[in-house]
């Protein structure tokens, strides 16, 4: 049973070579202010690093930030690595410059949510809370 008062633990990372990190840093700060426990892995993180940290830190959610246009390569690679390690139950969300058609595609491959440009941190916070709550996780697993 999940402790209702337990803080939501989220892993944030920026895969790929791109270094535009204004967005992910802003989100990290807003989530901390909203009492999330944020583990920010930083930039140029490999799929293996993400999987390892997600398991070690026992996170509730994984958030990936991609601005470079490489999301269709980078994100599936991470989902695959999570699956291989039996960690596919951890919901993955993506934020960045993602065209709507790609967002649909990403959701089909198992991404729980895509946050595009103009999305407010309060929208992100409430979506993540819903996602981390027990029901949503359950629903995600059985889907």
């Amino acid at each position, binding site marked *: 049973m999940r402790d209702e008062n337990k803080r939501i633990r989220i892993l944030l990372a920026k895969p790929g070579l791109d270094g*535009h990190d204004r967005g992910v840093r802003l989100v990290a700060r807003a989530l901390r202010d909203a009492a999330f426990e944020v583990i920010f892995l930083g930039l*140029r993180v490999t799929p293996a690093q993400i999987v390892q940290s997600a398991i070690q830190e026992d996170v509730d959610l994984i958030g990936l930030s991609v601005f470079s246009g490489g999301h269709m390569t980078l994100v599936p690679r991470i989902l695959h690595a999570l699956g291989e390690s039996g960690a596919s139950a951890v919901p993955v969300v993506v934020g960045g410059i993602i*065209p709507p058609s790609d967002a649909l595609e990403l959701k089909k491959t198992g991404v729980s949510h895509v946050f595009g440009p103009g999305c407010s941190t309060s929208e992100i916070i409430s979506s993540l809370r819903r996602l981390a709550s027990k029901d949503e996780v359950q629903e995600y697993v059985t889907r």
Partner: protein
Amino acid sequence: MDSRDEEKRIGRAMQEWEKDILEPVITRSPERQERFSTLSGKEVNRLYTPLDVAGKDYLEDLNFPGGYPFTRGVQPTGYRGRLWTRRQVAGFATPEETNRRLRYLLEEGQTGLNLVCDLPTHHQMDSDEPACEGEVGRDGVPLDTLRDMEVVLEGIDIASISTSLITGGAAVMAMFLALARKRNTPFHLLRGTLQNDVLSLYYTVNIPCFPLSLSFRLSTDVIEYCVQNLPHWNPISFVGYQIRETGSSSAQEMAFTLASAIAYTKALIERGLEVDDFAPRFSFFFNAHSDFFEEICKYRAARRLWARIMRERFGARNPRSWLLRYHVQTAGSSLTAQQPLNNVIRTTLQALAAILGGAHSLHTNSMDEAYSLPSEQAVRTALRIQQVIAHESGVTHTVDPLGGSFFVEKLTDELEEEAVEILKEIENRGGMVKAVEEGWVRGQIEDTAYRYNRELEEGDRLVVGVNCCRVEEEEEPLEVFSVDPAHEEHQKRSLEEVRKRRDAGKVEEALGRICREVRGDRNLMPFLVEAAQAYASIGEMREACKA
């Protein structure tokens, strides 16, 4: 009547105006907000009068354009002589595809090239390194070897058009020079700019392919080499644009950009160069954000401040050393994915601010860039913004048309004062390199970005289509551009072919020389150019520099 009497008279009249005319109106219909402020948070008064610029000296503080301290511009004829350079960023997929886009833009009336490298090239990595998978040609052109430089600039005469290279890397500059050698274009005919400001790129877009000290050394090598061999080349462009995109205020953008230029100036003087040897070739790159007047005043203030720093602090005597010459790009971070056509309007206002502020070169963003790299149609419309301003608006007919506006002069003064304070703080912290390494600069920018975001979310700042004037059903722009992943394979194959065909002995020899020279303090550029000429790859040159 002397000016002090005049001020008293205006002051008294203003008090009367406030009491008799203003107060009844405000009582009847209060103003929309208690406080009005610029995008960066600077308070803006209801009204500006001669009292706000009292004590200013026209000749000392503004002067005529082309006269120190250049508040009104560095060209005595403004845009009446020559318009700004229309210079759209281009680079994607492969050198072949990018060459097609460059030629298209030239046909459509662009007057300068602005070539952006892809992420692997920014990091000085070869396209076939495993970490580059999925990133080749995504948001710039891959330049692995001289072969790619040859292809991307095929059919374009680099002696007759200016070329801007958007990258920090000395290796890309070396490839460009190797191309010039191969085409028998003398170096002294080359015009253009290498971004090269690794100090600013280090903390904004986080491109540390080397430890900062080595990056800094390579970038100063480029400057030294260019001022000695390429008299018309700008070997560095101080990157305020990325500082602003990371979330800074306008005064921070100005101060941190100038602080980087100061750090380079000190380093080059330490190498034994005279300030007048290199300062005339410095160039700058600023953002044009959405607050119209604040941006105009930022450029005017930066021009004055830089002139004073160069002349008074560094003792530069060549008037060309005092000139702030700069390129502007409209604010990418201001573009919205919501109702993307509105981005044309935003970009138009930003471009107009850049021109009223006196930009020498301009890139205007395309409406679809909150989704992807721009499509050909979108980039043409973006270029048309500049052409409409240039040929239809009439704002180019007189120099610094807003000079003398009480508000513009006051805001110019305030922004300059704020930047001066920030520059003092940086000095107190031991200079810009230290302030960057300690994370202080990035921290300051992050605080501003966070504050702005809160204002946005609390509705204190309105962005059309995002937190007001929304539509139910969002439409995608006409065409979302995408880079075919097949290009990556093509690029890898091209690199493989170059490796097979080149003279391996020559490459090894040239790389070996870089390895040896990097340990000494001779300028590395001649050795990098040699390696580029031998078709050494960018990744090989990186490894040699690390040796």
